[in-house]
């Protein structure tokens, strides 16, 4: 049998990879994909806890996270498209309109 800690270590590794992606990439779509990896790692730990504690509530939370991720994807990508129409760039270093 696989112990619970194996799933949690996998989740922590995926979380770390996602955070590294958010911090080192400058292409906004790749940053977006890294955020999805982080959300997936959190989902994985929720389902693992739900299975090992014998409580189905964790899977319900995953369902809600999926719905919020879908909403986030729709609005975020619409913002990226609107920004690209304005500036012809998807690099986060070019996003400095508020920088006085």
């Amino acid at each position, binding site marked *: 049998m696989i112990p619970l800690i194996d799933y949690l270590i996998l989740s922590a590794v995926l979380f770390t990879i996602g955070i590294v992606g958010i911090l080192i990439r400058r292409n906004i779509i790749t940053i977006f994909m890294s955020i999805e990896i982080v959300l997936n790692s959190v989902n994985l730990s929720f389902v693992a806890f739900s299975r090992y504690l014998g409580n189905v509530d964790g899977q319900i939370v995953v369902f809600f996270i999926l719905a919020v*991720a879908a*909403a986030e*994807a729709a609005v975020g990508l619409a913002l990226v498209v609107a920004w690209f129409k304005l500036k012809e760039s998807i690099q986060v270093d070019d996003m400095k309109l508020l920088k006085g």
Partner: protein
Amino acid sequence: MVIAFYVLSFLAIFSAIMVVTSARPIVSGLYLLLCFVAVAGLYVTLSAPFVAAMQLIVYSGAIIVLILFVIMLLNQHTELDKKRSKWVTGLSTLAAIVIGWGVYFTFISSKIVMAHDKMSPIGGMKGNVEQLADVLFSRYFVPFEIISILLIAAMISAVFISKKRL
């Protein structure tokens, strides 16, 4: 099942690393698809078939298609030359690894986590959807309805933002 766990977790970690390191966004998107499918397989090993199906439909079906569609629409297939110094990249990688190590250390030092080395006898493949429906439509009924309002709001705002004139 142990073999399935190790193969799927290797696939998930490998494809996540490729998402972060590959230079072209379209390659990252396809590796992200592989990562999502591997995580869906891990949900099946955790005997959560409903969540696995949701993962395949919503993430690999809808979100990946949306991301790839936007990549092709924007037509920016390569990343520009790096303007940021190696210093900042190394430092941010180190900071992220410190954060991840903190998460790992919290898991390792928790007695409750270490005590569970067997899956619970309650809950399994059989009747998973019925159990989920029972809990979802009784205790979590109000959040479930609010989620639908959130989805409508997201849809309307996405249509409004991508209109020609704001």
